């Protein structure tokens, strides 16, 4: 490296900024995890210190696990997130393929129409959605949540994926056509593997808001059967008494699955980036 691009003050400055940002970003998460291992007195007495032998307490976790339903809430969250993610990626990719691959009248308009949802928050339609779900008898089912989240995730998915699909070589698709592959085979076997990195991006952007959402579970599926983790954690949040141990423990646990999914997808992301660079 030449001295023009590497000087000590500059390196220190850059790292100081990055470290400060990392600290700010991680602080709340670490605070939550730290305090989830402390007794109630420990949390209120010294919220910023890590658990000591004196304040270490697993009461939060035992409460959460003791409330047998919590495993069930986790299951609900997982089912909703994974199913929505699956449908968003499947339909989003299919729509993106059609928009980028076929010339038809109104192609651009259709693309704009499908991307409109990025600009209009789905929550504006909550009342209508609720009426729709009541009318179709889907209130208090996970299906309702999956449908809403699929709708919520599709615009961004179509928008991002159609940009990436345009970059897939036409020659490759045409080679498939000459070899007699059907359009579905071309889509699933040739195109999808090549846009996998962008699918991972979409998956990450879609998954986190769904997992963390409180709004729709509260409105569409508040029953004991269909509660998600974020809604379940509200259980410990009372009007007069709040069980902070349990809430912090529940939140710490809720981070885990989303973290695991993120790690899986981000590896895809990195692999995609490097394979593109070396090609």
């Amino acid at each position, binding site marked *: 490296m030449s001295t023009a691009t590497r000087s000590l003050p500059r390196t220190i400055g850059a790292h100081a900024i990055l470290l400060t940002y990392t600290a700010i970003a991680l602080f709340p998460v670490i605070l939550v995890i730290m305090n989830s291992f402390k007794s109630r007195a420990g949390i209120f007495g010294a919220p910023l210190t890590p658990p000591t032998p004196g304040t270490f307490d697993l009461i939060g976790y035992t409460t959460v696990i003791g409330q047998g339903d919590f495993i069930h809430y986790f299951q609900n969250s997982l089912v909703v997130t994974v199913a929505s993610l699956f449908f968003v990626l499947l339909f989003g990719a299919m729509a993106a393929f059609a928009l980028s691959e076929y010339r038809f009248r109104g192609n651009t308009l259709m693309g704009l129409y499908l991307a409109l949802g990025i600009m209009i928050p789905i929550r504006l339609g909550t009342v209508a959605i609720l009426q729709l779900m009541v009318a179709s008898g889907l209130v208090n089912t996970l299906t309702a949540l999956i449908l809403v989240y699929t709708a919520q995730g599709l615009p961004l998915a179509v928008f991002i994926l159609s940009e990436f699909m345009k970059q897939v070589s036409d020659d490759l698709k*045409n080679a498939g*056509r*000459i070899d007699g592959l059907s359009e579905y085979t071309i889509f699933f076997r040739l195109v999808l593997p090549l846009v996998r990195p962008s699918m991972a991006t979409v998956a990450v952007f879609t998954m986190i808001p769904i997992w963390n959402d409180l709004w729709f579970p509260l409105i569409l599926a508040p029953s004991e059967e269909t509660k998600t983790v974020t809604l379940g954690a509200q259980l410990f949040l009372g009007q007069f008494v709040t069980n902070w141990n349990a809430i912090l423990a529940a939140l710490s646990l809720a981070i885990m699955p989303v973290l695991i999914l993120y790690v899986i997808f981000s590896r895809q992301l990195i692999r995609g980036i490097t394979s593109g660079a070396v090609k």
Partner: protein
Amino acid sequence: MGSLNIENVKKAFGPVEVLKGINLEVTDGEFVVFVGPSGCGKSTLLRVIAGLEDSTSGRVVIDGDDVSATPPAKRGIAMVFQTYALYPHLTVKNNMGLGLKQAGTPAAEIDRRIGIASSMLSLEPYLERRPAELSGGQRQRVAIGRAVVREPKLFLFDEPLSNLDAALRVNTRLEIAQLHRRLKATMIYVTHDQVEAMTLADKIVVLNAGRIEQIGGPMELYNSPANEFVAGFIGSPKMNFVDGARLGETAKTIGVRPEHLTVDPKSGAWKGTVVHAEHLGADTNLYLDCEKAGLITVRIFGVYDAEPGATLYATPDPAKTYRFGADGKVLK
């Protein structure tokens, strides 16, 4: 088996007409090259033949059957693409076999044909590799192999050498020429490189702005171009065009190839100064700024010493001078 007839094919993308009525006849076993500048419609024409684009009007007839409405896989064609277009998730062997497998050919027959094609293209050591593990030249050979195993009526090549470096391009060109001689198959080859066209073709089709300018053998196009466009496109360096009026000629434009000019330091038809000299060893290209003819190129075989600024006289060979009318057509 392997004739092709194109009857009045037109293709428009919205209001833009890319092919303006193409008629062409290709007989069995011919090597036909479509050549033209970018945007002339040569690739579109190939795609129409392949069935990857529908023509707006006109018919494509392969071996006597009108295939205008037949999907690409059923036309009995095979195509080699500029970007190789190998299936990244399949091994070389499966890349070559996929088309046959889709058509329901028995596995033993597929293996037999892959064996023949891979020995022909010396691909045997790579059969179990994936495309990512091959070099550019190897990938293009696999792509050619994939076309060979299908035993098509018609081979279509879409600028297959454009992505290869200069040395590989010459080798692969040779391989394609040998392949054609061995298979005696009908091949249609699209390129913008007139050297490829001249070296490979039995018959060259020169296209410009969606129209066929001339069809003929390489030497026919070189020796008797039908018009100014073909004369300028075939041959390298490009033919010199001089305004007829400046030379006191009746023709609109006078054309003379750089290799049909001789230079002399003392006397000659056109007096000029040397602007630049390119020494290539086997020949020397001189750029002369002439009083009467303007800037012209002269190609001299062998080494010729000329410094920029020197005065030289260029003389065209009268037997090899072309005269073009106002419409660009050659005057007999």
